[in-house]
């Protein structure tokens, strides 16, 4: 299924280059902050069956939806809170993705 195609899969409105919703854009921006540019993004506005299907699959009523390693992680609020409390860096590490923010922190420590 689509969620296992890639370690990081996002169902959103619009595309990463052109998000069509503030919540979907927030997800794109957060991933970008961590240096995660290589991920699968599915535009649910292009496919009403996908839009309903993914809501049924995760039993989650809204878009955007973020999946890490095939597992549903949450929407934009959860991703934002994970970003703020450091959990996102940890989760990315488990996927073998080194967050760009870790490098930014290392630079700060050297000062």
């Amino acid at each position: 299924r689509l969620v296992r195609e890639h370690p990081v899969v996002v169902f959103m409105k619009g595309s990463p280059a052109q998000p069509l919703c503030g919540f979907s854009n927030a997800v794109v921006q957060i991933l970008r902050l961590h240096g995660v540019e290589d991920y699968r993004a599915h535009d649910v506005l292009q496919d009403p069956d996908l839009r309903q299907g993914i809501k049924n699959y995760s039993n989650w009523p809204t878009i955007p939806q973020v999946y890490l390693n095939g597992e549903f992680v949450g929407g934009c609020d959860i991703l934002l809170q994970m970003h703020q409390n450091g959990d996102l860096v940890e989760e990315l590490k488990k996927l073998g993705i080194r967050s760009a923010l870790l490098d930014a922190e290392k630079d700060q420590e050297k000062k």
Partner: protein
Amino acid sequence: GSGGPLARTIRAKLTAALQPTHLEVRDDSPLHGGPPGAETHFGVLVVSGRFSGLSLLQRHRLVHEALQAELAGPLHALQVIARTPQQWQSDPQNPPAPPCLGGSKR
């Protein structure tokens, strides 16, 4: 004011389901191009001891469960901040919704 009918329903259901110590319900519909009072996009901040020990995902699912009927109907988007009373005491913030980017009108 206390908001429109949907805001009051949301408030009542969350209160009954989660016995929050603090609850804020915000109609964000104007941020998404709707007229004020459209009641399509909401943000809720819920502080409840029931969230203790639950992951973010589990907490949000509890909130969604309480509002199942609304989410199946008029509610298009729901922002959720779910904190335990301890977390709220150390960090009482209710961040605003991210800016809208035009939605499906683009």
